[in-house]
């Protein structure tokens, strides 16, 4: 039940982030995710950044192994899973760090996109040129090496009929308080520790909603009724950790 693909390119985006391109495309709605298996290394949830590629940031063993993959090596995917973004025109995208990877696929599929990107430094601003071809891009970096010095939240409020946000959870929570759009028009892609990816193990619960099948994309109105958002998540054993 895995679909196997072969790596054709491992592109280094910055010292800790790489994009793996496959020899085939996968059909997924933007915002859906796959469980990616690398035999021996484990299995983890990833969004696709391209129909034929994913962008990964080193966070631990698994992502470190993804960084090392060579063309010709294989990757196993099952999915697509979960609920993605609606395909609507006029999206304001807000991406923080590797979070922008979770929005990349959507950007290609909707009209009149605008982008607010944030990161520690210029290296963290992914796909800058590609996105600039699609719509206006504004950037905030903490060290000021690209765009405005500051946080992406400093670029808010901003226009856009709909909003799509993906990034560190505290950054997303901060965005919410500064956005003027109606909560039902604001979509956020959130992460929880996923073991099964298909609604069985319960580990990805966020205030009782299963992020793997109810999400990973939720509206701000939904998140209002999910007090764990921005606050806590369940780890490997199920125990709570603060966000």
């Amino acid at each position, binding site marked *: *039940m*895995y679909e*196997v693909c072969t790596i054709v390119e491992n592109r280094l985006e910055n010292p800790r982030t790489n994009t793996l391109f496959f020899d085939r495309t996968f059909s997924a709605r933007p915002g859906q995710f796959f*469980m990616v*298996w690398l*035999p*021996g290394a*484990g*299995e*983890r949830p990833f969004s696709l950044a391209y129909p034929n590629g994913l962008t990964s940031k080193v966070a631990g063993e698994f992502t470190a192994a993804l960084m090392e993959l060579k063309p010709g090596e*294989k990757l*196993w995917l*099952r999915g697509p*899973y979960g*609920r993605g973004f609606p395909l609507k025109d006029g999206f304001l995208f807000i991406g923080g760090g590797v979070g922008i990877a979770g929005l990349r696929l959507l950007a290609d599929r909707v009209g009149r996109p605008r982008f607010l990107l944030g990161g520690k430094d210029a290296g963290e601003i992914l796909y800058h040129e590609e996105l600039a071809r699609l719509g206006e891009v504004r950037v905030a970096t903490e060290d000021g090496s690209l765009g405005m010095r500051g946080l992406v939240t400093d670029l808010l409020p901003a226009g856009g009929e709909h909003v799509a946000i993906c990034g560190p959870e505290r950054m997303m929570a901060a965005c919410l308080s500064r956005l003027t759009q109606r909560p039902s028009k604001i979509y956020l892609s959130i992460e929880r520790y*996923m*073991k*099964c*990816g*298909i*609604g*069985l*193990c*319960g*580990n990805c*619960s966020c*205030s*009782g*909603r*299963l992020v793997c*099948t*109810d999400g990973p994309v939720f509206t701000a109105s939904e998140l209002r009724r999910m007090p*764990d958002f921005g606050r806590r998540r*369940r780890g*490997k*054993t*199920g*125990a*709570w950790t603060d966000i």
Partner: protein
Amino acid sequence: MPSVPRHLELHPPLVNGSGLLCFLEVFQHLDRQRAALGGYVTKSIGPEGRPGNVAPVVYDTGHVMLNSLALPTQPIESWIEDFRSLPVQKPVIGSVYGNRVEEWPEVISRVEAYVAGIELNLGCPNYVPGETSLMTVVGDSPAMMREVVGLARAATAKPLIAKLSPNTDYLAAARIALDAGADYLGCGNTAGPGLAIDIEAARPVLSGISGGLSGDAMRPVNVKMVYDIYREFRAPILAYGGVSTWRDAVEYLMAGACIVGLGTCFAYRSTRQMARLTRQIWEGMQRFAGSRDVTHLVGAAHV
């Protein structure tokens, strides 16, 4: 020990299987979604926090579901914190296990105040490679089974469910469990276990190597278990395994179950869809039974 009725009042007589949905806030949410579950069963609670196996821990072969979660559990303090802060309207059954015999009553006494009943997980076939399988030891050892159920019985006056494996001599196990004071038999845990190899990877998929079988395809295994145990003991049975339609639930009632659990049927569904599925199952059961009370179907397949 105060004499209380050791009977689970669940309306409808449907629950989730332990390890599915798992956490109290998920139960709260399903209740808000108007799930037709008369009660909820927690993920199996162990004596100390452990992560179980690392992913891949579930694998859908396309024909049957395998899992090798291998009993992850948050530390018992976190469970208690959850019981205190996340109240659930419906009865919650605490599923428990221990690694050593004396741990079972310890776990039970820590959680029993917060639950409507205790389910002993005596039949999980999964393990973390390198570890000795906790459950298989208990499930395969009559002496240990007798001791564990006996200690559990002494540790709680609440309804006690002995959830058994379909992969052992379950008639012998059921007899021991009933003798030792179990009120209900849980029939049963996952079947098999089985092993799936990915041929491109040339290795077993599950990091636990093998995993228990669940879902529609294994239903006949657990229906037989219910049928055999009911015929032998006429004991109250909580049935699990491969229920995904109201017909399946009725099949278990007719085999002898009085409560039916839902598990793998939740796969690939949002919580809203899960809740809807439980309503469809319950509505179908009532329609078939011709009443809101379905107890007259219990054991109906025994001629």
